[in-house]
């Protein structure tokens, strides 16, 4: 699929095409899943526990090799490559829970995000960019990352992932374990990342809140995409609300513990 300068949907940055994947000899987790992430969008995966949401991200970032199917970045087939190659192709992955290097400073953490870059000027430029996008990162630059609050650590992880200027950033449950106010901040940051030019593939337990942030939504069940479409439409669907979003759409959103 070549990108053409004509109206219509732009070519997706990331495509997972009929992907099947699983762990060890256990049963398949993803069973022929297809997802597209167009440029400039936040795509959100929702679904029950065990639907395979995190596995999608692991396949995309190269932590898990798919058994079949293809992974395309910007039209290029990158199926089966390891994390380093995936990062070079433009996919950055922010793990579930806390994944800062706890005993290093915020600055060291962020600069490690640029581990694969060699150009010093470029690194400095990116560091400046992420400090502007996430002011807390600049403020806490010299502090140990492990001592920051959960929400601040998340922002350090976001900043670290953006150092390589990825095409798509993969976020696994960024609101996990955060209080409602911090969750709101984190979702604001997700929108800011998108507005700064990075597409986002987001996995969330906190489905309603995530769909309110996202542009597109995919409901996963049993390793396949059950329904997908513009996020507002999914939110408005009463049946979907009942099944996957925990209640009627009229109910005010509240964060849930995963």
């Amino acid at each position, binding site marked *: 699929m070549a990108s053409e300068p004509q109206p219509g949907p732009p070519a997706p940055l990331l495509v997972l095409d009929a992907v099947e994947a699983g762990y060890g000899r256990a049963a398949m987790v993803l069973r022929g899943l297809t997802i597209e992430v167009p440029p400039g969008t936040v795509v959100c995966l929702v679904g029950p526990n065990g639907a395979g949401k995190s596995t999608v991200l692991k396949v995309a*970032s190269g*932590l898990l090799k798919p058994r079949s199917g293809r992974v395309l970045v910007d039209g290029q087939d990158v199926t089966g490559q*390891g*994390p*380093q190659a995936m*990062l*070079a192709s433009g996919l*950055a*992955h922010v*793990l579930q829970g806390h*994944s*800062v*290097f*706890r*005993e*290093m400073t915020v600055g*060291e953490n962020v600069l*490690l*995000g640029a*581990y*694969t870059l060699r150009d010093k000027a470029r690194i400095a430029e990116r560091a400046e960019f992420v400090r502007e996008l996430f002011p807390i990162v600049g403020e806490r630059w010299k502090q140990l990352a492990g001592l920051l609050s959960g929400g601040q650590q998340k922002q350090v*992880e976001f900043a*670290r*992932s953006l150092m*390589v200027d990825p095409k798509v950033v993969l976020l696994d449950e960024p609101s996990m374990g955060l209080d409602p106010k911090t969750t709101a901040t984190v979702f604001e940051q997700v929108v800011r990342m998108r507005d700064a030019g990075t597409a986002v593939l987001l996995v969330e337990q906190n489905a309603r809140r995530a769909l309110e942030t996202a542009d597109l939504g995919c409901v996963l069940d049993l390793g396949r995409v059950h329904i997908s479409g513009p996020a507002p439409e999914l939110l408005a669907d009463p049946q979907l609300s009942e099944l996957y979003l925990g209640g009627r759409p009229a109910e005010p959103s509240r964060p849930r513990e995963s």
Partner: protein
Amino acid sequence: MSGSLLFQSLVLGVLLGGLYALLAAGLTLYFGVMRVVMIAHSAFLILAAYLAWYFNDQTGWDPLLSLFVTVPLFFAAGVGMQRLLIARLRPATLTMMSVLLTFAVALLIEGMIGLIWSGTQRRIQLPYSGSNVEFFGASIAVVKLVAFVLAGASLGLLYLLLTKSRFGRALRATIQHKEAAQLVGIKTDRVAGLGFGLGLATAAVGGTALALDATIYPSLHWHWVGPLMAIIVVGGLGSVPGTAIAAMVLGIGQSLLQVEFGTTWAQTLFYIALFVTLMVRPQGFFGGRLAQRF
């Protein structure tokens, strides 16, 4: 115990602690990076001591020069051992299986030393073997001082490498969060191999330092396994400064107890410290906050 004897023991304890600290740093690296308990570390230590002795015996040159051979050799052996043996262990049972695997390696090395150089006790005779220097009334063997300087300098170099270099950052990142390290593009397998090589290189340096001042025999390494394991547990597994502090404290303690109770009983200090640590503070006395920091 008289004041001067106390001071003498204290100084000797510091010198011994320096050697312990270097060797324990190697063990800390293995455990920190790979969760490997390396029983064969002290066997490699004794092997390096034998190589230093053999080098001196054959060439007549100072055994310190053997470092130019043993350090690269041990580094390469460490990388090879990690890639060919350790990396094949299943991650889920890695720590336990590494005990068995490295135990076997230790026996292998001990047997090999016995086979090549026999069980005879060996000792290096150097022109400066008998010399002492006066240090505020304490009489210190020159060889002990040389060993300490060697250990201290190597530990300093290791520290600089870990804190200042790109490789050091990658290694620390791998210790602190392996998956996140992979996701920023660090080849953690490669880092683990190099980390293992680095650990074994400390055994090469330590062995040479040991050879300057000790009578060596093939089974000597069993005397080192216990104390070194105790040191890294007391120091908090995975913490280089923690183990350095623990090594100093226990080294000095051992040296002081030796005066009153003799060598055998002084050794029990390590086991007592080990038990107390496991009962009172299983994460190690310098674990927690200091752990994983360099």
